[in-house]
């Protein structure tokens, strides 16, 4: 029994340490990467494997140490998986606007190493820059 207990402890702590390590690496990425768009990649890591590892550790702890099933954690990851891409998308859209601010009109984000975003095709631009075409998949109403 004590062998099983220490094995359980080992698995739980391993998951928590893995999660914390990835959260730390994600934060370090936010500090050291050059401009906003690259820095955006740091937090997307921290929310996936970083938080995922800690949540699996939590499920294991409640199951192995307390003997109950706690599945709230699945909801936390579900909500994160829905909200994280949307907040990243909003930050990217603000950045796209900032790239078009004229220097004399105030502070602007520096253009990253990837340069200006390319124009998608003749006859249309990104939806941040112009209204979505009616009856296209980018339109918000039918």
């Amino acid at each position, binding site marked *: 029994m004590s062998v099983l207990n220490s094995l359980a402890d080992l698995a739980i702590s391993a998951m928590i340490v893995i999660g914390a390590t990835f959260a730390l690496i994600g934060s370090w990425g936010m500090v050291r990467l050059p401009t906003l768009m690259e820095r955006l*990649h740091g937090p997307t890591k921290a929310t996936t494997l970083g938080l995922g590892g800690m949540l699996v550790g939590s499920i294991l702890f409640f199951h192995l140490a307390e003997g109950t099933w706690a599945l709230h954690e699945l909801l936390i990851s579900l909500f994160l998986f829905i909200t994280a891409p949307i907040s990243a*998308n909003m930050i*990217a859209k603000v950045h796209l606007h900032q790239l078009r601010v004229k220097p004399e009109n105030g502070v602007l984000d520096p253009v990253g190493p990837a340069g200006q975003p390319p124009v998608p095709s003749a006859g249309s631009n990104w939806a941040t820059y112009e209204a*979505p075409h009616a009856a296209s998949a980018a339109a918000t109403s039918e």
Partner: protein
Amino acid sequence: MRRLIPHPGLSVLLVIVWLLMANAITAGGLLMGIVIGILLPLFTAPFWPGRPSVNYSAGLAFIALVLWDIIVANFEVAAIILFRRNRDLRPAWLTIPLELDTPEAITVLAGTISLTPGTVSADVSSCGNFLLVHALHAPDPASEIARIKSRYEARLKGVFK
């Protein structure tokens, strides 16, 4: 039946989420979950005009694939953050031509791209035919675009018929 339960998948998901939130399966909790599962889709139906038909088994396979890719990509991006110097980094904007044509499918593709570390979807074109994606390290943008199209978009075409 269609009028009472406009989105059966959403209703089932709401019941499951409610039971998970209560963290117990009781008759009262189940009843409350069913009430919410019926009422919420009714009130929010105007926000969901389309009714895409979803192949659920293909959807589950897709979710499993994405979860695996997230784990692999986490290690790749961790290696980039820890060991690659900024001047060796090759960030790039990717313009992905879309074959998916429903807003739901494009939203799932964009979310998948954002959740996979190393790529963030930034915008969709106003004609709805292109997705703007920022890649943290893409020395060969064309192959990265081909990878996203073959790995995710092709499978999503099977999920959203």
